[in-house]
C-alpha cells in the first residue's frame, strides 16, 4: 500500500493512548488517561462529559497547549497523515490556527480586551502567510466576519470586543478561529456562556460553516441535547477516560455504558414530563487518587464484584467502543 493510500484511509485526527498528567504536591493528577479517539474528515464529533473529565485537556494536549508543568504522552498522535509527536515546536505552531483551530467557552475572556477585532483576526492571517499585506488581511477579515453573520463588518471591524453583544462576540471568536479555513475546529463549550435563544443560532452557524468550509468539528459540551442534535458521532468522557464512543443515534438510543445511561436519565425530557430526573449518585473520583479498577464502579448501579478489575475500551460492534466489563450482558437488559 502506498503512503498516500494509507493517508486517505486514515482519519483526520487519530489519538491513541493519550495521557496528560500534572505534577502536584505529593503526587500527580492524571487529567487524561489513555484516551483513544478518532475524528473523520468532514464529520462532527460530540465530546461529552462532566467538567474536569478531561474533554478540553485532551484537545489542548493535541494542540501542544498544555501548560507547564503538564506532561503529555501518546502512543500515536496523527493529524492529516502527519505524526504530531515528531513535529518540532515551529511546525506545531504552524498547525495551530491554520489546520486545527479552537474556540473557547467564553468569547469575552478569549478575545483580548486591549486589541481591536481587526488586529485579532488579521494577525492569524498574517502569522500563517494567508495574506501578504495588512490591507489584504483586513479585506479577508471583513469577509470572514460577514461569513459568520456580523452586520456591517466594514465598520465593526475596528471595534473592541467589549463593544459587541455576547452572541456577536461568540461569532467574532469563531471568525478568528476560522480565518485560515482550518481542517478541524474544536469548539469547546460554544454555547455554555450564552443565552438559550442565542445558543441555537451559534450551533446552527457552526453547522453551516462546517458544510460550507468542508471541515471537521469537535463539539465539546456537557449537554447531551446539544450532542443529539448536532453531531454524527459521540465520545463520552468520564474521569479522564473515554467510556463510550459510537454513532450519536446509537449511543443515545442504546447507551452501552452505565454512565451514559445515567447521563441520559438525568436529562429532563419534553416527551415525558412526569418522568423524574434521576441524578447519578456519588461523586467523580479524585483525579489524584484514581482507582485501578473501573472508575465508575463506586457510582454504578449495575456494578458487580467482578467489575473490580482494570477495564479497557473494547469494540462491542463495528465502530462502537465501550469501557465496561459487563458491556455485553448489561446493554440488553
Amino acid at each position, binding site marked *: 500500500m502506498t503512503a498516500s493510500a494509507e493517508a486517505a484511509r486514515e482519519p483526520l485526527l487519530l489519538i491513541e493512548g493519550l495521557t496528560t498528567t500534572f505534577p502536584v504536591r505529593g503526587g500527580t493528577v492524571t487529567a487524561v488517561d489513555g484516551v483513544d479517539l478518532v475524528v473523520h474528515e468532514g464529520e462532527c464529533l460530540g465530546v461529552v462529559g462532566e467538567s474536569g473529565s478531561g474533554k478540553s485537556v485532551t484537545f489542548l494536549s493535541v494542540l501542544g497547549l498544555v501548560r507547564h508543568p503538564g506532561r503529555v504522552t501518546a502512543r500515536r498522535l496523527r493529524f492529516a497523515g502527519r505524526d504530531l509527536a515528531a513535529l518540532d515546536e515551529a511546525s506545531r505552531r504552524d498547525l495551530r490556527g491554520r489546520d486545527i483551530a479552537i474556540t*473557547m467557552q467564553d468569547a469575552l475572556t478569549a478575545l483580548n*480586551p486591549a486589541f481591536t477585532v481587526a488586529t485579532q483576526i488579521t494577525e492569524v492571517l498574517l502569522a500563517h502567510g494567508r495574506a501578504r499585506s495588512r490591507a489584504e488581511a483586513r479585506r479577508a477579515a471583513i469577509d470572514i466576519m460577514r461569513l459568520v453573520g456580523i452586520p456591517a463588518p466594514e465598520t465593526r471591524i475596528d471595534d*473592541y470586543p467589549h463593544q459587541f453583544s455576547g452572541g456577536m462576540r461568540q461569532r467574532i471568536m469563531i471568525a478568528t478561529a476560522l480565518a485560515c479555513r482550518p481542517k478541524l475546529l474544536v469548539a469547546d463549550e460554544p454555547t455554555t456562556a450564552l443565552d438559550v435563544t442565542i445558543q441555537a443560532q451559534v450551533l446552527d452557524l457552526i453547522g453551516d460553516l462546517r458544510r460550507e468550509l468542508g471541515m471537521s468539528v469537535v463539539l465539546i459540551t456537557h449537554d447531551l441535547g446539544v450532542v443529539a442534535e448536532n453531531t454524527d458521532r459521540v465520545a463520552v468522557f468520564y474521569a479522564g477516560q473515554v467510556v463510550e464512543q459510537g454513532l450519536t443515534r446509537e449511543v443515545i438510543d442504546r447507551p452501552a455504558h452505565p454512565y451514559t445511561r445515567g447521563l441520559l436519565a438525568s436529562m429532563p425530557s419534553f416527551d415525558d414530563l412526569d418522568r423524574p430526573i434521576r441524578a447519578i449518585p456519588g461523586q467523580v473520583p479524585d483525579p489524584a487518587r484514581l482507582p485501578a479498577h473501573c472508575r465508575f464502579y463506586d457510582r454504578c448501579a449495575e456494578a458487580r464484584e467482578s467489575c473490580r478489575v482494570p477495564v479497557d475500551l473494547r469494540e462491542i460492534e463495528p465502530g462502537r467502543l465501550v469501557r465496561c466489563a459487563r458491556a455485553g450482558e448489561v446493554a440488553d437488559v
Partner: protein
Amino acid sequence: MSLSRLLERLLGLIPVLLGVSVIVFLMISLTPGDPVEIMLGDSRATPEQIAALRHDMGLDRSAMERFLVFLWNAVHGDFGLSFFHRRPVIDVLAERLPATIELTLVSLVLALVIAIPLGVVAAVRKNSWIDRIATVGSLLGVSLPGFWFGILLILFFGVHLGWLPISGRIGYSSEVHSVTGFLLVDTLIAGRPASFLDAAAHILMPALTLALPMAAILMRVTRSSMLEVLRADYVLFAEAKGLTRARVIGRHALKNALIPTVTVAALETGSLLGGNMIVETVFGWPGIGRLVVEAIFNRNFPLVQASVLLYAVTYVLLNFVADLLYVLLNPRVRL
C-alpha cells in the same frame, strides 16, 4: 475621550491646589524660626533696620493677610521674591527645574528599561534562577535606602575606579549655551557630542541611584500582573491561533499587564520630582530638591510655598497622564 471630560479633569485641579496652598501656608506659619534673623545673622542691625526689612518682606502683616496676598499674586503668576536670592521665586525655580526634570526622566527611562523586561522574564520563567535573582534583587532594591546606594556608587565608580564624575551636571569645559535647560538636549543642539557624553556621564550615577529602587518596585508590579495575565484565556487563545511566543507575550499579555505598572510608575515619578532632595544633595545636583532644602533652612517662605505648590501640580498632572495612558492600554476604560 471627549474634550469636555478633559477640561473637567483639569478644573478638578483647582480645589486640590487651593487645599495644598492652605496647608503649606499654615505649616510655614507654625514653623519656628524667623527669616529676618537668619538673613541678618550675627550682624548688629538696629531694631529700625530689622523693622524695615520685616516691612519690606511683608512679614509685619497678619498671617491671613499674607495668605490672601500670596493667593492673589499666585493667581497672576507672581510668587513673590525669594528672600534669600532677592529675585523672583518663579525665576529661581525655572532655573533649577530643568535639572530635576532631566534627572527624573532619565531615571524613569532607566527604571522602565530595567524593570519591564526583568518583570516579564521573571513571570514567564517563574521559579527559574533568573526569577529568583530578580526577586531577591528587587527586595534589596526596595529595602535599601537610595542615598546609601548612591554613596556606594560614588565610592566605587567615582573614587575607586575614577570612571565617572561624582558631582554636578556637567564639567566646566563642556558647558554649552542653554536652550531647553536639559543638558542632554542642549549639548546636542550645540552640536558638541563630547559635551553630551560628559553630561551623560554626570547624570548616570544619580539617575541610577534614583532608578534602581523604582525599578525594584516596578519589576515586582510587572511580574505579578504578568503572572496573572499569562493565565488569562486570551493568552491561551492567542497561542491557539498559532502566533509566536514572542508575540503572545510581548503584545497580547504585556499590553494588559502594563496597566498596574503605569500607575505605579506615575506615582513614583511624582515622588521623584519632589522627593529626591537627598540624592540631589549627595550628588551635588543643582535641582529643585536641593533648592527646597536650602529654602527651608533659610526660612525662605515664598520659595518653599511655590515649590510645594509646584510639587502638588506635578503630582496631580502625572496622575492625570497615567489616566490618559490607561485609555491607551485598556480601551474599556472611559475617563
